[in-house]
């Protein structure tokens, strides 16, 4: 009888203790290392929002990002459509564990509004992407556990569980499929606060820039709860265009259209 109980108990222990925290961290350190020193980035972004009935809505925005050493990145997003919010701009200074700093520019009033960054889990522009899904990757934001090897879309991957360490996350954990060769994410599964599978994001059409940095041409986020999906289409990637912190201040925010 005893012999049966022990393996049973082992099965009941949380999966985390089996997983390999050290290996998980090492994989993500390599992910970070390979994506260092791109300095600044510009890209045009189209979001295609689809509901269960197949109705589509399109949002387009331009995004500039400044890589910060030893801190989260700075980013400026300017909305081009829907037309009633054209010219609205969003400035964000992200931090690994401290609260991000965020400002919104409302062009009709010419008003710059400092907004709360506690809104991590809420939808971005009515899409299936939460604010936290779109902020820059910082190693310290999560605790990692290597779970297993598994192929994703025919590519050998490490599967790493990431547990958010920052406040106000809508997730208990995410599962990330990391390409073993290129050390880039191919898929992320998101588990909600009740630890149920909520969403899955797939990264497609990767291209390499400056012979080093891989960027996805599009990513698709499926929400299993609502049946809705959002596709992000990234275009016109440009790196090292000479942006400085000055391109990410409130004065620039007020000039943005």
């Amino acid at each position, binding site marked *: 009888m005893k012999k049966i109980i022990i393996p049973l108990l082992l099965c009941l222990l949380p999966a985390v203790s089996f997983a390999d925290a050290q290996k998980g961290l090492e994989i993500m350190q390599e992910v970070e290392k390979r994506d260092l020193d791109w300095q600044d980035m510009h890209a045009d972004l189209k979001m295609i929002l689809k509901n269960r009935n197949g109705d589509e809505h*399109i949002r387009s925005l331009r995004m500039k990002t400044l890589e910060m050493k030893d801190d989260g990145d700075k980013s400026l997003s300017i909305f081009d459509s829907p*037309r009633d*919010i054209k010219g609205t701009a969003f400035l964000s200074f992200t931090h690994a564990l401290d609260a991000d700093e965020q400002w919104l520019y409302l062009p009709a*009033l*010419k008003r710059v509004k400092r907004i*709360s960054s506690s809104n991590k889990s809420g939808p971005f522009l*009515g899409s299936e992407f939460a604010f936290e899904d779109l902020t820059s990757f910082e190693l310290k934001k999560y605790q990692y556990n290597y779970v297993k090897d598994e192929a994703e879309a025919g590519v050998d991957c490490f599967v790493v569980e990431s547990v958010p360490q920052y406040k106000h996350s809508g997730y208990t954990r995410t599962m990330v499929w990391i390409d073993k060769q290129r050390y880039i994410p191919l898929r992320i599964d998101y588990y909600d606060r009740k630890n149920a599978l909520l969403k899955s994001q797939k990264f497609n059409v990767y291209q390499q820039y400056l012979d080093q940095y891989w960027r996805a041409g599009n990513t698709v986020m499926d929400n299993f709860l609502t049946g809705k999906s959002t596709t992000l289409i990234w275009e016109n990637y440009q790196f090292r265009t000479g942006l400085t912190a000055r391109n990410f201040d409130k004065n620039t925010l007020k000039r943005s259209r």
Partner: protein
Amino acid sequence: MQKKLHYLLILSLAYLPPVAAWELSGYVGIEDLAFIEKPVDSQQHNNYVSGVIEAELYHEWDNGSQIFAFVPYFRGSQHDSQRTHFDIRELTWVKSAEEWELRLGIRKEFWGVTESRHLVDIVNQRDMVENSDGEDKLGQPMINFAWIQDWGTVDLFILPGFREMPFTGEEGRPRAQPTINNHHAQYDKNGFERQVAYAIRWAHSVGDWDIGLSHFYGTSRDPVFIVEQDGQGKISFIPYYQNINQTGLDVQATIENWLLKWEATVRASEQETSFATVAGFEYTFFNVSETGLDIGLLAEYLYDSRDERAPSSFENDFFTGIRFALNDVQDTQILAGVMVDSRTLSQFYNIEASRRFFDNFKLEVEARFFNGAKPDEIMYAFRKDSHFRFELSYHF
């Protein structure tokens, strides 16, 4: 020699950057103002239909460091000739460099943090015929130099050309009783001193704090009113604009779900020195029950030492409000608030809702109700002016 010049010309033309596209955007809309009660003055009406167009022509070049924008605006209104108005909201050129920006032309400038009243915001005249909420502004000619340093931004303003506050006409609503005379404003200074104002502002963000400190010298944008009787014995209000020195402070602390806000001004005119403040908070519950809904609670206290003589009705009032943002595809938003006078307990209710349709259309509904104003209050003039405002606009 001639040939050399030609070569130079061709060479310099070849060096001209490609002319980036000029961008045109804007909206056209149709609006209905519907009043619930019979007007105080029989010249006024119960329903006003109007049409509006605002366009923006925009161009940027020099790698985005120079921009040009032209924003003309027109509203044509039924019944109220004063509300039919054209304005250049913007006609501006901006040059930006690493440590400074130069902004010339007709522009709009916003200062401040609070929601119920924009106390420190003084550069532009308010367009009170466009909407009685005072959120719309007239374009202001200016020379604005911004000096951008690690310790903040210092903005210097020279503001030539004073613009009077426009008010609804005799047939218009909501309006003061008796009517405000739009044509015979008076000033305590004349000539150059009346026309040109100067301002300086320092603004900075440090961690959770956004701080602004400003000073303004020139003709006050908000008038006081003098009662005047003309030859026929008709009584009207005459706007009286004073030369003032106003120092303003605005502070916001953004801590977790809290926005803590404070604005204060000290204003000195030939008549008196007065103090005014607005202080309050906004607390937001984000993504309630994981539906995407944000619910914000707002509360602000308003004080003005001029008391009942204050040209605004916010002398000792409490504002509370609730904001719903659905964060849906249609960007549905509702803001409902009430301002209560602490002395008379008279109330002003304001509800604003907006929603997008078919990607390019937007519907806005506003409801404003006045209740319980006593005859000695400014609000008393508007006691019959509770109304709904509907605007459907197409954005291009």
